[in-house]
């Protein structure tokens, strides 16, 4: 069961979006999120919906995956929508009054805006991880944060930690599986009992897992030292990220759409 977890949810492909420079993708995704808040009107959000759908088609990622990535946050979406419907007050007469609760037109408008916004944020950021492998994303984060290393921010260390984490996640999952089986063979009841009992039953799984993780860390550190690891200073990279001509065009196109989203505020009174 643990083996089914895929981290980062990457769907390899060969589209323009898959091959795009990850730094550009990362920055554009951030700008996109900001623009979703700047453009607080139906036209702007309409454009953003069209943009997201268009990009999913471009990346050949099935649209039903949007639904899948939204599933865990449906409660949050409903909660925010309900709160907005009931608690945003307007100047006109309430549309419906249920005792002390009043529903105004503004409330409904606002709830719809918020819901669309959240869906767009999730769909947009999921698209980033769908089309970018975690390794490439790590490299992009390292390069984008590099200026911060002048301020003594440990950029290289952070990136190395992310790489090692990504490397060891499948290993530790496999190990958890093994330990669970070993404890089951000794009669541990991991799948039954009350919640409390099940949590308690996990302790004999977690302790060996931690001990082995520390042992691995120790050995890995030694192996890294043996291969001349001495921090980020003077390091070169096998693969350097490069913006291709296509990436530039995609970026320009995205910026144009973002500007349109921003301008929509002036069109909508």
């Amino acid at each position, binding site marked *: 069961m643990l083996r089914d977890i895929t981290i980062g949810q990457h769907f390899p492909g060969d589209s323009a979006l898959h091959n795009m420079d990850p730094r550009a993708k990362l920055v554009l995704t951030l700008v996109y999120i900001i623009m979703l808040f700047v453009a607080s009107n139906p036209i702007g959000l309409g454009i953003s919906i069209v943009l997201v759908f268009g990009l999913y088609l471009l990346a050949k990622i099935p649209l039903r995956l949007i639904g899948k990535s939204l599933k865990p946050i449906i409660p949050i979406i409903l909660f925010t929508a309900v709160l907005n419907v009931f608690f945003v007050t307007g100047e006109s007469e309430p549309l419906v009054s249920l005792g002390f609760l009043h529903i105004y037109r503004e409330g409904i408008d606002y709830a719809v805006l918020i819901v669309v916004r959240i869906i767009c944020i999730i769909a947009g950021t999921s698209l980033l991880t769908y089309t970018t492998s975690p390794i490439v994303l790590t490299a992009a984060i390292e390069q984008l944060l590099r200026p911060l290393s002048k301020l003594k921010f440990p950029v290289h260390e952070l990136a190395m930690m992310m790489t090692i984490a990504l490397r060891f996640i499948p290993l530790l999952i496999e190990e958890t599986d093994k330990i669970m089986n070993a404890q089951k063979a000794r009669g541990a009841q991991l799948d039954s009992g009350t919640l409390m009992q099940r949590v308690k039953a996990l302790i004999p799984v977690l302790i060996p897992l931690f001990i082995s993780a520390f042992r691995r860390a120790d050995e890995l550190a030694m*192996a890294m030292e043996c291969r001349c690891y001495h921090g980020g200073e003077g390091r070169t990279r096998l693969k350097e990220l490069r913006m291709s001509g296509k990436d530039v065009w995609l970026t320009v196109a995205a910026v144009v759409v973002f500007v349109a989203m921003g301008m929509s505020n002036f069109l909508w009174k």
Partner: protein
Amino acid sequence: MNEHAQTMLEAKDVVFRYSETGSNAIDGLSMQVKKGEYVAVLGANGCGKSTLAKHFNAILLPASGTVWIEEIPTTDEDRLMEMRQKVGMVFQNPDNQIVATVVEEDVAFALENLGVPRDEMRCRVDDAMQMAGIYKYREKAPHKLSGGQKQRVAIAGVIAMRPDCLVLDEATAMLDPIGREKVMHTVHKLNRDYGITVVQITHYMEEAATADRVVVMSAGRIVMEGTPRQVFSQVEAVKALHLDVPQSAELCHALTQAGLPMPDDVIRPEECAAAIYKTLTGKEPPRDV
């Protein structure tokens, strides 16, 4: 100086203990490894052989005595990177020595650390992967490979540094027979074709039998030393150290004891077969035995 030119590794009167109060893990050990030599180090668990291996690239420093890598004493901190580049280490568990999430990036790890320019790095990484026979897996994730393949990735990651010496610390212990054979084949090829000195710490007597020289350790000291033939012909002495001899040597020894005289320097299955053939038929065996 001339002497140093021939010597890859040298340990002189090395003493090491892990804690102040504990006993000596290495207890006044001296040995030399010549350039291009293939040395196997044997010994029961806890005899200090892994500790010795870690002295050979300055992971551990002796409490007293000196270890030299070529002419550099391992205490020379300014030349640490140079020493680590000269002597590559491969450990037992391949999972715990692979850093990156893609094979070729892991092979490049050491070169990235050394600041090798990208064009040169690309070609050294490709060379190392070819030498270790893992070129076709270069874009795979390490956790999707078998144990033997992973260990060869680890070896490629080390030989990309173009080391003069390879220290294998029970590098085949966790592998299945096929993985082990492939790794051994790779290591022998590196020794034979590229002149890389090999120090192999192992529990497998069949592996030790293929070395140029065997060193047997016990309680932090060297107790036996010589060619595999010289060492393994002393079946009783080796067994007294809680070690095995290669099965061929053991069989010949048992036959001799049972009253069937056999040559006492047999260590390979083919030699054993030839010797038995000769005893049974009284004729020299045909070539293809």
